[in-house]
């Protein structure tokens, strides 16, 4: 329930620490190779395939899965669903760490980290979608940092600074929703420039809408998934309020995710129909498209609905995993699998093991940071000095 209740003294050499340590050492070695030898030393990227898994997974999937922050804070502070309040801090933390590792991953892909602020101070490419994505991600990361900072400020006992941050909650929430709407959709808009490269089943003028709606699904599913893992590994850190609201959060977010998935399924069918792409469904890519649409959109929507209907928390939790896999598959399809679909297989992209290594390394760094924060700061429990302050 609180910081003092760690059950016994655990050895530093736990399974998690050993695995994380090995991954971090390998990741640092690949980082050295990347920044001394360039992209060619560690990736299979080429002029045909300039975006690999560092963009397809680390950035596109990372940003989508970090959407839980704006979804949860909008539900609680804008729509007044106070019964989900205990989910806000874990969701904001996941969002903040998610965006932080997205920016970290971007440095590997772009290189020359000291030039990251260039779009804002040297060359404003204001007609570029990428500029809008960069501006929104930078601003939203700042917003998430301020939103999250109330927890470390409580932990450090800086009451006055914490009170100022709490007073900004509504403004930050509204900013978060605006910025998220803009850049989540803009990530889809990036692909509007390549109608001849992206397979017609995935290319659509509605791509920005698809990306935005799937980010809401990802955010809702991630909150369920994250609360399940938190309960599994950090149960001793949770207070009574978190324990009581846990099931309500799973049911409520499961219901919302089910409905949004159903809406997404419908507009995907509309997209298929308005582009008259039915005939592609008979091809190999068509079957793969149906696997994504039926197996990772329609099925989780149905399973969430059943779970909510019969109040099966386990079914909802497992469905959240399926929905998250569906988001990952969708981003992979758009960015990698259905991209450059017309090229011969010899020219197609497959990630180098060191690209995968860096992605695993970055996710591990996020997990280490999450564990460090959750075990020290009031994320899963109310700080004793601020009980009932919300």
């Amino acid at each position: 329930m609180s910081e003092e209740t760690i059950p016994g003294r655990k050895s530093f050499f736990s399974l998690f620490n050993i695995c994380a340590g090995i991954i971090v050492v390998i990741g640092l070695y690949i980082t050295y190779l990347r920044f001394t030898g360039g992209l060619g030393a560690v990736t299979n990227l080429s002029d045909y395939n300039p975006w690999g898994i560092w963009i397809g997974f680390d950035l596109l999937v990372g940003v989508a899965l970090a959407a839980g922050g704006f979804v949860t804070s909008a539900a609680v502070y804008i729509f007044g669903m106070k019964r989900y309040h205990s989910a806000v801090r874990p969701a904001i933390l996941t969002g903040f760490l998610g965006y932080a590792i997205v920016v970290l991953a971007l440095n590997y892909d772009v290189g020359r980290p000291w030039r990251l602020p260039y779009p804002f101070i040297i060359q404003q490419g204001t007609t570029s979608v990428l500029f809008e994505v960069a501006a929104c991600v930078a601003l939203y990361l700042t917003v998430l940092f301020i939103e999250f900072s109330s927890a470390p400020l409580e932990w450090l006992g800086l009451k006055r600074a914490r009170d100022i941050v709490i007073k900004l909650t509504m403004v930050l929430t509204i900013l978060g929703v605006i910025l998220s709407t803009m850049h989540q959709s803009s990530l889809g808009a990036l692909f509007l420039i390549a109608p001849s490269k992206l397979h017609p089943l995935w290319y659509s003028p509605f791509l920005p809408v698809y990306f935005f709606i799937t980010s809401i699904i990802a955010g809702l599913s991630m909150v369920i998934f994250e609360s399940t893992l938190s309960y599994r590994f950090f149960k001793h850190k949770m207070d009574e309020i978190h324990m009581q609201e846990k099931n309500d959060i799973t049911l409520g977010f499961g219901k919302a995710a089910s409905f949004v998935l159903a809406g997404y399924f419908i507009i995907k069918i509309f997209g298929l129909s308005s582009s008259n792409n039915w005939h592609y469904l008979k091809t190999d890519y068509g079957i793969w498209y149906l696997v994504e649409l039926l197996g990772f959109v329609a099925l989780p929507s149905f399973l969430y609905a059943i779970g909510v209907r019969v109040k099966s928390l386990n079914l909802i939790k497992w469905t959240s995993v399926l929905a998250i896999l569906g988001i990952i598959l969708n981003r992979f399809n758009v960015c990698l699998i259905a991209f450059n679909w017309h090229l011969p297989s010899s020219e197609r992209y497959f990630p180098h093991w060191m690209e995968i290594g860096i992605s695993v390394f970055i996710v591990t760094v996020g997990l280490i940071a999450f564990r460090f924060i959750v075990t020290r700061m009031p994320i899963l429990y109310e700080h004793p000095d601020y009980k009932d302050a919300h």
Partner: protein
Amino acid sequence: MDGVFYTLHDFMIHTESITYLLIIPALLGITVFWRLIAGKDDN
């Protein structure tokens, strides 16, 4: 003139018609679906 010559207008009429027809079951379906998942407690 043996073959049929389809114009962009024909294409638009064809695809838009199918899409508009799909809207009807979609609206009915999503309403029924919402009743299914939210029927027991609407708050």
